[in-house]
């Protein structure tokens, strides 16, 4: 079974796959030095995972994303959408703090790009 476990840093989120729950979690902030390089292994992992096991839940809790990370995230969503179109069990959860409306805007924009389940969850806690 494939693992994916990227440790969080100041400018990069933690990205980890939970085998038991079939959930890929992305949490933290995302403004890497080179977003394309940073997300390339994640995209590759997701493609391989979906080829083997046609199901995935993506759970995102990222309070800030720079513009190039946004592009990488959209690429990731496209891959999930394609799997969904082919009958894969895909769902996406986007968590955001209620005092961070920019994150909600971004979630809504991403939601428009896909037809799979995309839940937006408000966190009512200052962190």
């Amino acid at each position, binding site marked *: 079974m494939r693992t994916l476990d990227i440790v969080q840093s*100041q*400018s990069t989120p933690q990205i980890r796959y939970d085998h038991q729950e079939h959930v890929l979690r992305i949490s933290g902030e995302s*403004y890497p*030095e*080179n*977003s*394309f390089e940073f997300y390339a292994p994640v995209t590759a992992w997701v493609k391989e995972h979906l080829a083997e096991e046609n199901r995935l839940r993506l759970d995102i809790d990222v*309070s*800030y994303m*720079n*513009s*190039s990370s*946004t*592009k990488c995230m*959209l690429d990731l969503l496209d891959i999930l959408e394609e799997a969904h179109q082919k009958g894969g069990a895909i769902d996406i959860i986007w968590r955001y*703090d209620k*005092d*961070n*409306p*920019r994150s909600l805007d971004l979630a809504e*924009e991403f939601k428009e790009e896909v037809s799979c389940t995309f839940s937006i969850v408000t966190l009512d806690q200052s962190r």
Partner: protein
Amino acid sequence: MDLFQLREQFSKDGIMMCFNGPFSHSIIEEMGTAIKNHLANENIARVAVQDVFAAYIEMTQNARNYLTRREIPTGDTGSATIMIAKKDDVYVVTSGNVVLREDIAELTSRVDGINALDPDSLKKEIRRQLRSELQPGALGAGIGLMEMAKRSGSGLEYSIRDIDDRFSFFTLRVQIPQV
């Protein structure tokens, strides 16, 4: 250099933070964290904190990517200046870096083009750019300027000062209301 005079100038202009020098990624991270912590202590909406931080990140990463991509020599030319100031209830994020004179026409027409867009068209243009193929070896997604314009709501301001036959100094400024 009279430090007292510099300090007086800083307080007169409401400058909270100013950095001049070569920007490494770790300096971008460290200063970004300092800015966020500083703003978190001011009693302002978190959306303003996020927008100032976002403008700071896009500007510094844009400058760094440009200087790298165009192979601007390190040293004075390879460095950038970033400043965050507060005037009345508006945060002003300004960055400056050396640009090749041959790049100026394209750069200014890009900024002018962004400023001419209304919020709806800006949103559409960001989406279009997000959906377009990247140039091989691209360091950014090409939407940093639009992202700043969107968050500011009052457009991007710029100025250009010629240095010599080869280089000019490009200054970019965005205003973020405190809300």
